[in-house]
């Protein structure tokens, strides 16, 4: 707790002399505020007051008031001599005050440590409310703070704890002026300034007192408010920083979304293939994939004896467009007898990925197609399916071809790009870069770290897949492990019975796993997480 002085206000008051009437004593009472009548001294200082001690202040927030006087010293005290030059000869001492116990405020020059000690000792026995010191000088500036050596009484600050009243200091100039006034208002009515006027105006007794009354208005300069202000500032700054960061992140994230969207539309990125987002193909676009009637002209010796085992790619299969449920644009598709691999298909499906050869049955329901009877739908990658099977798959499950995982979304199509998609795409890109770096630099310790990292990643993944609704998580990278490829053609495995699970395969798995964090969008987020993502997108 610390105290500050807002104001020291001195006025001149007229007190009655206690009167002795027949039965008892009429004590001294306040009669008039002389200053209010412009017949007396008044002064007011609002600044340059130093609090030297406020430990035992009875009032910490309010007004300390009392009659101003200079404490008496013993006649043999050397300080009487030392103080004399600073005190008017008739300055107010306690004997000059009304005999009733009014509150007192002591006033004295701070000449040296010894005299101050003597003054304080004297004041301690008086009904004191405060002590005001000044250092005799012509300075009007604020006295030094309580910690200054100027106020050192060479007792290690003990005086402050012994003094049971607050001690203030005013500037030398003001102190001298007040001391001068204190010399003027010490005698009886005939001696004080305007004494005669006062006497006539109030019909005052000559024995009445006209004295200076001091009011010291203090306020709690508690450290608490300043702490609050400090906190407010800190919070404000923090808030501003958060706001700025949030705005910046929103801006960056927005640009990343635009960039991702552009790349998706340009076909550079296969969102589902990278495991970023499970997508489906709009039914309008599914309908645009051409329908054909299955038409397979086998060479006599390979009459579909064992349709389960595809014959090696051979340009023997032809597709002839006959009908497409009355859709003229599909009928218009050239009914070329060309093998499907040579059909003009647009660039994303380079000849190597376009299905070639014999597709005797629908890979979804495994039902063989009937020549010239079954209507099939052909995807841009060249794979054919029953329309019912593939429409359901593309419309409800996935945007990738069930056989080759090529993306079936129309060019320029892009789903709503969310921040989490941006985040995952970036994570996958970074991880892939690292894995590729790993491929280049075959350094031992790094590799083991990589492996343990991969297995922990996978464990996390497995955990995620244990939850039943998690089937629609992530879809791996475009790369497919050899294992998966083997599954699709059982006989291929027989030709190649020992699958090499080499390091390169493990690394390939890593690449797949890179895209396989659980999809945040499918997971219920806590309120806090959702808020964090709102404020700091891409964090």
């Amino acid at each position, binding site marked *: 707790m610390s105290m500050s002085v807002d104001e020291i206000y001195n006025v001149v008051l007229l007190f009655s002399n206690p009167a002795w009437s027949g039965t008892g004593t009429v004590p001294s009472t306040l009669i008039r505020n002389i200053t209010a009548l412009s017949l007396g001294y008044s002064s007011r200082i609002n600044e340059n007051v130093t609090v030297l001690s406020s430990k035992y202040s009875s009032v910490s927030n309010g007004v300390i008031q009392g009659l101003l006087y200079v404490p008496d010293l013993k006649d043999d005290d050397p300080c009487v001599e030392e103080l004399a030059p600073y005190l008017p000869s008739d300055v107010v001492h306690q004997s000059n005050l009304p005999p009733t116990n009014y509150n007192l405020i002591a006033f004295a020059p701070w000449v040296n440590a010894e005299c101050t000690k003597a003054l304080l000792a004297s004041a301690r026995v008086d009904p004191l409310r405060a002590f005001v010191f000044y250092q005799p000088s012509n300075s009007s500036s604020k006295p030094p703070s309580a910690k200054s050596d100027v106020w050192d009484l060479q007792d290690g600050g003990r005086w402050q704890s012994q003094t049971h009243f607050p001690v203030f200091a005013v500037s030398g100039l003001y102190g001298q002026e007040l001391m001068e006034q204190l010399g003027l208002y010490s005698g009886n009515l005939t001696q004080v300034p305007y004494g005669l006027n006062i006497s006539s105006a109030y019909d005052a007794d000559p024995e009445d007192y006209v004295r200076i009354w001091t009011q010291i208005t203090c306020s709690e300069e508690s450290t608490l408010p300043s702490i609050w202000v400090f906190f407010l500032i800190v919070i404000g700054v923090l808030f501003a920083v958060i706001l700025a960061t949030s705005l910046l992140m929103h801006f960056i994230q927005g640009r990343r979304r635009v960039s991702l969207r552009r790349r998706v539309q340009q076909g550079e990125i296969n969102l589902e293939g990278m*495991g970023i987002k499970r997508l489906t193909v709009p039914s309008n676009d599914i309908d645009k994939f051409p329908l054909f009637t299955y038409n397979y002209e086998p060479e006599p010796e390979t009459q579909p004896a064992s349709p*389960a085992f595809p014959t090696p790619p051979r340009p023997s299969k032809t597709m002839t467009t006959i009908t497409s449920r009355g859709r003229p644009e599909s009928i218009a598709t050239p009914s070329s007898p060309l093998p499907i691999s040579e059909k003009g298909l647009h660039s994303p499906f380079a000849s190597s990925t376009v299905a070639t050869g014999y597709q005797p049955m629908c*890979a*979804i*329901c*495994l*039902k063989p197609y009937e020549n010239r009877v079954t209507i099939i739908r052909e995807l841009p990658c060249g794979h054919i399916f029953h329309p*019912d*099977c593939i429409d*359901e*798959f593309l419309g*409800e*499950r*996935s945007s*990738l071809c*069930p*056989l080759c*995982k090529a993306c079936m979304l129309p060019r320029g199509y892009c789903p709503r790009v969310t921040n989490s998609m941006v985040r995952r795409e970036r994570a996958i890109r970074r991880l892939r870069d690292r894995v590729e770096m790993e491929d280049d630099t075959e350094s031992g310790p790094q590799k083991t770290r990589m*492996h343990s990292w*991969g*297995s922990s990643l*996978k*464990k996390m*993944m*497995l955990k995620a*897949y244990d939850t039943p609704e*998690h*089937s*629609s*998580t*992530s*879809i*791996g990278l475009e790369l*497919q*492990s050899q*294992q*998966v490829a*083997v*599954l*699709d*053609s*059982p006989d291929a*495995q027989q030709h190649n019975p*020992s*699958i090499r*699970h080499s*390091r390169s*395969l*493990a690394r390939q*798995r890593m690449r*797949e796993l890179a*895209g*396989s964090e659980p999809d945040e969008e499918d997971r219920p987020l806590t309120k806090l997480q959702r808020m964090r993502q709102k404020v700091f997108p891409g964090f």
Partner: protein
Amino acid sequence: MASQKRIQKELAECTRSPPPGMSIALASESNLHKWHVVLQGPPNTPYAGGTFGLVVTLPVEYPFKAPAVTFATRIYHPNVTNDSQGSICLGALKPENWKPASKLLGVLEAVRALLVEPMPDDPLEARIAEEYKADRKEFEKNARAYVARYAKGQPKFDGEAGGAEAAKS
């Protein structure tokens, strides 16, 4: 229902010409979605001579969703959890890798291939994987001990996958 038809076809195919060392049956005649597979430990592996039970669970959405394959018989293997669950780490069954064109025959082949050649770089049981890589002899000894303890006689499928085996141990 397309899914039923396809499962029936696959079942027929698998029972007609089962993968080597396997026999396949439905868990119950009425339910096409749960298969019980008995797998003979491949020769020239520590699992030779063992008879392992596999439970194949086909989701309703099959073939759009991947089937689940678990070991009903406990097995000492880096890619199979060493508990009564018997979960298998099989890339082809991961949702991101599964394609409707993948067939159960291939999945079962892959499980068998995993017994022939474990993938210690992609383990479910890191400790066993370490052992496999560092101390092949010890691994084979342990695997054989598991076979002797759990994989002798007709595999039990009752209740939870491997529940009976777990109770026995």
